[in-house]
């Protein structure tokens, strides 16, 4: 028989604990949201190290300004918003949104068919296609199809209107499909 133990504290409860002086409780939020935030930032910046920097900066900022989180029940959206903003700042500091050749994952032999490629090679190809998208479309695609957000939550994260986000996702799909067909 499995003992489920006490239920995990809600975000609202953890935020209250942190604001009440229990700084260690912030670790609960980090464990809860770090994986997704790292994935999001890495996909946005095309580089895991840059993604880790952006997430670390975002989490420290979130901790310092936690009292300004207007709806702790929607903490996830708030954290993604801060991280997305941080990623945009990182991208703005770059001369180009394209990752450098040294950062780019090695391309598989394009003569190989998709089916016979190793998973790592498939990931590298898809990452390359994703990185070729403009930042806004990349963000929209990642939030929708990688982070699995609804358009409503995407609007909360990005501040963009839902019709705008739908258009970005649609355009991202078209570009990604074209890029994948070209790469493989």
């Amino acid at each position: 028989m499995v003992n489920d133990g006490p239920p995990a504290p809600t975000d609202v409860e953890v935020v209250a604990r942190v604001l009440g002086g229990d700084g260690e409780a912030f670790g609960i939020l980090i464990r809860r949201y770090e994986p997704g935030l790292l994935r999001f930032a890495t996909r946005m910046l095309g580089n895991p190290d840059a993604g880790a920097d952006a997430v670390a900066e975002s989490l420290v900022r979130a901790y310092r300004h936690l009292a300004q989180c207007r709806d702790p029940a929607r903490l996830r959206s708030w954290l993604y918003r801060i991280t997305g903003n941080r990623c945009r700042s990182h991208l703005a500091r770059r001369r180009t949104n394209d990752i450098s050749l040294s950062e780019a994952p090695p391309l598989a032999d394009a003569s190989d068919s998709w089916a016979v490629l190793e998973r790592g090679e498939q990931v590298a190809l898809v990452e390359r296609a994703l990185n070729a998208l403009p930042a806004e479309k990349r963000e929209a695609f990642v939030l929708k199809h990688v982070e699995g957000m609804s358009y409503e939550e995407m609007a909360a994260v990005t501040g963009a209107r839902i019709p705008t986000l739908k258009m970005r996702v649609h355009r991202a799909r078209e570009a990604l499909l074209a890029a994948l067909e070209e790469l493989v």
Partner: protein
Amino acid sequence: MMAMSPIDPRLQEALDGERDPGTLPMDLREAYARLVGAANLLQTLPAVSVAARVMAEIHDLKPEVPSVRPARRLMRWLARPRAVTLRLRPAWTLALVAGLAAILLIPTQPTNRPSPGAQEGIAQFVGHFPGARSVEVVGSFNDWSRGSLHLRDEHHDGIWHGAAVLPAGPHEYMFIVDGERWVPDPLAGRYVDDGFGAGRENSLLIVRPAQASLDEDATLR
């Protein structure tokens, strides 16, 4: 440069969860599978963690929450000094402004209540929230902490107002209506980005030293 062409709306609908992908023609089903497969590949989690780094960085930090200062501000706010500067409103509030001015001009007995220091001023907050059960103000001056500055609707007409002694200078603020709805002051006149992206803005209030306000009979903003 990759060639990009619009893809079939039925494929978009399937990817948006609005259509059963099983009903797609074979060629669209292949494209559907390719995009879904690509998204699945991108869901691979990075094998890094910043948890230790973040916890080390925040170890010596504290969230910007109030401790003692808001209570002190609350006491001073309750004391309600008389040196007031009004924030001018659009036309619909002219009557309100006139009413407030009348209140402010009522002579009062000299008291021992604290008055603003040389570098402090009094901020008047007024909002029109008909039907609201509570309205409070949070801002940079109280570390965005709730519970320290509640507005009152004394005449039950939806006009909520209150005042606070604040250090001279700019202060960002927001109204919280019914304890949950964050609302910028629609009449603030000045707004600043809240710093968290997404284009949201805080209202901005500029408090002038009370003495200067008295001298000049000036407005706060």
